[in-house]
C-alpha cells in the first residue's frame, strides 16, 4: 500500500522512519483511554541515524539518503523549461537584477480538524466518511488500498461531511484515512480517527518551502526582456502534490506580464522534514514573491516608476504567452487603476510609511493537471417547482453550494431556496476531479448550468404548447413562465411541471451534464493552454515600519481582482478577505518552526496566525471583465487573494524604510537587522 502520485509513502512505515510524523503502528479501541493504554504497550527500539534537514545540503554528494532505494535525494521530476533565448536576451538587456529569496513552511490552519470514519459491510464494501476536497480521486486511492489488502472488485463509497476549511490540505489522501480502513477491516467495526489540534499541525502537510534564485531584465524603456528562475523545494520525507507545485509556479514565471524569454528549473529534494501538500495558490505565492519583489528593484534601476513598469508590461486580452496560455479576458490594467485610486503608489510619503504594489495571474477557468478537468451534474425537478441538483463539486466552506443554487435558479427562473444541492457522496453524485485550482465556480458552475439549460429546453417546449407561443418568446422568471411582451399569458412553473407529469406518457423533468473545459494538458515542454481563462489582480498596501522595533503595521489594503463576473459578491469578498489575511500571515508572522525536523509550535498560541485584532480593513474592488467561457461570465477567485500579498508588503517596507527583506516571514527582527546593516553601511561611506 503506497500513497501519493510518486508512490513513496506507505500509510504505516517499517524498517526506517524518515520524519517525525511517520506513522508506525495503529490501535483501535472502544475508548480513547483504552487506546492510549494499548499504545503504551507498544515497544519500539530505534537506532539513531544522521538526519538531513536542509534541501540544498541534501543535494550534496555525501549527504545521507532519505530513501536508499531512490539512490538520490533529488526527485526524478522534470520541472524544466526554456522558451526564447534567455542568455541572448540577458546580454541585450539594459538592466538586470539578480537575487535570492527564501520562503518558509506555513500550514492551512483549517478550523475543523481532520478525521475519518471507515466501515465495511458484510460483503467487504467500504464506506468512508472523510474530510476531503477530492471525493472521486479519494475513492480511486481507497480502491487501490482495498486491492492491496486483497479486496478486489469491491465498492468504495466516499461521503464528505460538512468540513471546516480545506485550502488544499485535503487534496491528497492521508495515512490516517488508509489506517482507518485497515483498522475497520481488522476489527470488523466502524473505526473513527479524529485529529486534535496538535495532530492537525504535525500530521497534515504544509506549503512547500523554497529557495529561489531569480534574474530579471528589461530594456531602457522598462520592457521586460527575460526572466530566469531556479528553485529548490524542500519535499520532506515523502511526496504529495507539493512536489508538483512547480507546474503552477510556471504560470507566473512565464506569463505574469509580457516577457518573451523565460527559463525555469526546479528541483524537489527529499529531506527528513515534514512533507508538503497543495496550499491555496499552489506555488504561485512563492514565485510571485520573487518576481514582484525584483520587478520593483528593476524599476528602480531603470528609473521608471513602479506603476509604470507594471503598466508597460501588463498582459492584454488576446495575448498568447510563451507557455501557450491564451488570455481571453484580462483586467490587470483596471486592477492597477483601482489600486492607484486608493492611494498614490508613487506619490509623496511620510517618514516610516510606505506603499507597495504587486500583481498576479492565476488559473481562472479550470486547470488541466489530471487527465480530466471535468465535473458532472444531475438535475431533477419535482411536482412543486423545486430542484434537486447532484453535483460532483465540493463545498469546503467557500460557498460552492450557494453558487450552484444561484446559477440553477437564475437559469430556470426560480429562487435560490427552490434549489437543493446534493454533493459529496460518490454513490449519488457524478465524478469531479476535486475542489482545487480555483475551478469550482467555473467548472462545477458550468456543469450545473449545462444541466439546467437542458431542463430549461424541455420546460420551454411544454410552455410553447401550453401557452401557444414560440419557444424563443418565452421567459422563465419569478417561478413563472410567460410570453415576452405579454406577461398575462403565463403559467406558474410548478403547474407546468404537474401538467407534464400527470398526463398520458407523462414526463418528469431531469437532465445530466458533464462539463470538461476545453483546456489542454501541458506536454513535455510544458506548453499548452492549461486553463480556459485566467484570473488577474493587483494588490496595494500601505505600511508603517517602527524603526526602533522593526515591527510592521499594515495601515491600509486594497485587493483588486478581475473575477469575470461576481456571481455572489458577498462570498467573493469573503474569498478575497480570507486570501489577503492568509497572505498577510505568510508575509509577516506565520511559520512552522522546526527543530531537526520536529514541529515546535503546534498550537495557535505559538503558530502566529493573524488574529481578529490583527486583521485590517481591506477594500476589495471587483473588476468585471465578463469572460465568455465562464458561467454567466465568472472566473475563479478561490486562491488569488493570497498570491501577491507578500511581495506587496515587502515592496511597501522597502518604500517606507529602504530595506528589502528576501526571506519570509518578514519578522520584526529581520527588519531591524536589515535596518542596522543599512545604517552601518551608510556610516562607513
Amino acid at each position, binding site marked *: 500500500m503506497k500513497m501519493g502520485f510518486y508512490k513513496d509513502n506507505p500509510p504505516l512505515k517499517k524498517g526506517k522512519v524518515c520524519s517525525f510524523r511517520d506513522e508506525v503502528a495503529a490501535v483501535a479501541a472502544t475508548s480513547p483511554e483504552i487506546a492510549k493504554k494499548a499504545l503504551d504497550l507498544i515497544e519500539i527500539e530505534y537506532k539513531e541515524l544522521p538526519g538531513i534537514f536542509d534541501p540544498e545540503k541534501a543535494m550534496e554528494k555525501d549527504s545521507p539518503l532519505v530513501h536508499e532505494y531512490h539512490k538520490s535525494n533529488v526527485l526524478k521530476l522534470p520541472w524544466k523549461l526554456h522558451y526564447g533565448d534567455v542568455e541572448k536576451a540577458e546580454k541585450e538587456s539594459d538592466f538586470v537584477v539578480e537575487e535570492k529569496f527564501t520562503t518558509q513552511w506555513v500550514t492551512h490552519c483549517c478550523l475543523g480538524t481532520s478525521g475519518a470514519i471507515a466501515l465495511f459491510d458484510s460483503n467487504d464494501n467500504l464506506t468512508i466518511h472523510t474530510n476531503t476536497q477530492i471525493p472521486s480521486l479519494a475513492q480511486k486511492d481507497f480502491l487501490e488500498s482495498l486491492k492491496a489488502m486483497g479486496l478486489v472488485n469491491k465498492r468504495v463509497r466516499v461521503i464528505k461531511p460538512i468540513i471546516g476549511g480545506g485550502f488544499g490540505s485535503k487534496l491528497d489522501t492521508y495515512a490516517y484515512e488508509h489506517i482507518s480502513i485497515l483498522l475497520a477491516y481488522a476489527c470488523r467495526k466502524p473505526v473513527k480517527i479524529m485529529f486534535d489540534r*496538535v495532530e492537525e499541525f504535525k500530521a497534515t502537510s504544509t506549503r512547500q518551502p523554497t529557495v529561489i534564485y531569480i534574474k530579471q531584465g528589461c530594456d531602457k524603456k522598462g520592457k521586460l526582456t527575460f526572466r530566469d528562475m531556479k528553485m529548490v523545494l524542500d519535499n520532506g520525507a515523502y511526496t504529495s502534490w507539493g512536489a508538483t507545485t512547480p507546474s503552477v509556479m510556471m504560470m507566473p514565471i512565464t506569463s505574469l506580464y509580457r516577457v518573451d524569454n523565460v527559463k525555469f528549473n526546479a528541483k524537489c529534494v527529499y529531506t527528513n522534514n515534514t512533507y508538503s501538500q497543495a496550499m491555496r495558490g499552489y506555488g504561485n505565492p512563492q514565485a510571485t514573491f520573487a518576481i514582484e519583489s525584483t520587478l520593483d528593484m528593476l524599476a528602480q534601476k531603470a528609473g521608471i516608476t513602479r506603476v509604470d513598469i507594471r503598466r508597460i508590461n501588463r498582459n492584454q486580452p488576446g495575448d498568447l504567452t510563451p507557455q501557450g496560455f491564451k488570455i481571453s479576458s484580462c483586467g490587470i490594467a483596471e486592477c492597477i487603476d483601482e489600486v492607484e485610486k486608493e492611494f498614490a503608489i508613487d506619490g509623496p510619503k511620510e517618514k516610516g510609511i510606505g506603499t507597495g504594489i504587486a500583481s498576479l495571474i492565476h488559473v481562472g477557468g479550470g486547470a488541466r493537471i489530471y487527465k480530466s478537468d471535468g465535473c458532472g451534474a444531475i438535475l431533477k425537478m419535482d411536482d412543486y417547482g423545486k430542484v434537486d441538483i447532484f453535483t460532483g463539486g465540493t463545498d469546503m466552506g467557500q460557498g460552492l453550494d450557494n453558487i450552484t443554487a444561484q446559477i440553477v435558479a437564475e437559469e430556470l427562473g426560480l429562487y435560490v431556496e427552490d434549489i437543493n444541492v446534493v454533493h459529496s457522496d460518490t454513490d449519488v453524485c457524478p465524478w469531479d476531479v476535486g475542489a482545487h485550482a480555483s475551478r469550482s465556480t467555473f467548472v462545477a458552475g458550468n456543469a450545473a448550468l449545462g444541466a439546467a439549460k437542458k431542463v430549461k429546453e424541455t420546460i420551454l417546449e411544454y410552455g410553447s404548447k401550453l401557452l401557444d407561443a414560440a419557444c424563443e418568446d418565452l421567459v422563465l422568471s419569478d417561478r413563472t413562465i410567460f410570453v415576452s411582451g405579454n406577461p398575462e399569458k403565463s403559467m406558474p412553473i410548478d403547474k407546468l411541471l404537474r401538467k407534464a407529469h400527470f398526463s398520458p406518457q407523462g414526463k418528469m423533468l431531469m437532465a445530466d451534464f458533464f462539463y470538461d473545459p476545453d483546456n489542454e494538458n501541458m506536454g513535455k515542454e510544458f506548453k499548452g493552454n492549461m486553463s480556459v481563462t485566467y484570473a488577474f489582480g493587483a494588490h496595494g498596501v500601505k505600511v508603517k515600519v517602527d524603526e526602533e*522595533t522593526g515591527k510592521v503595521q499594515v495601515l491600509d489594503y486594497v485587493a483588486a481582482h478581475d473575477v469575470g463576473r461576481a456571481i455572489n459578491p458577498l462570498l467573493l469578498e469573503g474569498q478575497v478577505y480570507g486570501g489577503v489575511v492568509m497572505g498577510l500571515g505568510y508575509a509577516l508572522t506565520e511559520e512552522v518552526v522546526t527543530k531537526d525536523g520536529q514541529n*515546535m*509550535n*503546534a498550537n495557535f*498560541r505559538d503558530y502566529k496566525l493573524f488574529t481578529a485584532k490583527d486583521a485590517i480593513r481591506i477594500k476589495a474592488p471587483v473588476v468585471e471583465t465578463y469572460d465568455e467561457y465562464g458561467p454567466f461570465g465568472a472566473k475563479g477567485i478561490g486562491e488569488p487573494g493570497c498570491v501577491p500579498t507578500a511581495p506587496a508588503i515587502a515592496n511597501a517596507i522597502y518604500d517606507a524604510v529602504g530595506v528589502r527583506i528576501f526571506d519570509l516571514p518578514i519578522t520584526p*527582527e529581520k527588519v531591524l537587522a536589515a535596518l542596522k546593516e543599512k545604517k552601518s553601511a551608510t556610516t562607513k561611506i
Partner: protein
Amino acid sequence: MRLPRFKYLGPETLDQALDLLNTHKDDAKILAGGTDLLVRMKKGLLKPNILISLKALNELSYIKKQDGYIKIGARTPLADIIASDLIQKEARALFQACEKIGAITIQHYRGTIGGNILQDNRCHHYNQSDFHRSGRQACHKDGGKICYAREEADRCNSTCQSDGATALMALGANITLESKGGQRTVDLANFYTTDGIMPFAMESHELLKEIIIPLHGAQSAYQKLAYRSAIDYPIVCAGVLLKHSLKKEIEEARIVVGAMGRSPLFLAQVSSSLKGKKLNDTIAFKKAADASMDSSATFAVHNVGATLDYRCAMVSQMVFQALEQAAKYIKR
C-alpha cells in the same frame, strides 16, 4: 485535545474554599478563569485530581481605594480592571498590561488578575503536548534532569511571561495569601523563587486573596512587544514607575523587565540610577534602558519565540518607551 478527568468542587464561601485546600493540598488546584490551568491540563503538564472552583466566591472580586492603597480581589476579571477609572488613573501600568492580555473574550469572560499573576512559567520545549514530550527524556520542569533551552543547564530556565505581574511589580504591589487559620502579605518582588519549576514561594494550602497597590502620587507605564495584537504573550515587556518631586526631579524609580527570566526582573540598581534626574533627561532614560538590557540579558534563554539577540535589544526599547511615557504623564 481532551481535558483529563478530575473532581470538581464548588465551595460557597472563602472559608469553605480554604478548608478544601487544606484537606487536599497538592492534590488540588484552584480554578478561577482557567485560561492557563485548563490548557496545561489538556497538555498533561498538570494532572490535579481535584479542581476547587472560585466561581461562587464573588467576595474575591472587587476594586477599591482604601487607606492610600488600591485593593483588588484576586478573582477580579481582567475586563473589570480595564474598565476601572481608578486603575486607569492611578495604576496605569496595570491597566495597560491587562488591556494586552490574551484577547477580548479572555479578558471579558474568564481571565482574572490572580490567575494572571499565578500563571506558570513557559518554555517552547516544555509547553508541548503529552505526545511530543513522550518521545524524549523529561526536562527539569517535567521531572527530569535535562534543559532543552540551555545546554547542560543544571536547572529549569522557563520564563515568566505574565503581563500583570510585570506591571504590578513596577507598581510596588503586595499580595495577600490566605490559608486556613492564617494570612500573610508579601511584596510581589519577594514572591518569586527564581526556580523555574516552582516559580512562586507559595504553599499548596494557600490561596491568593488580594493585590495591594500603594498609592504615592507616582506615574507608571507598561510596554509590551509581541508579534500579534492579541493572544500573544510578551516576548519582552517592561513596567516602570516614576515618582517625582516638586522640582520635577525623579525621587523614586522602579524598572521591571518581564519575559526575560524566571520571574519579572526588578532592576534595583538601574532604577536608583535615575534618582535626582530631571523628567526630561532623555539621555539618562536611554542609559537606564541600555543598562536594563545588560542586566536582564544574562537571565534570558532562547525559549519563547523570537531570537535571543532580538529580545535583548528590545529590552532597552521597551524600558525607554515606558520611561518616556510615565514622564509624559507626570508633565501633564
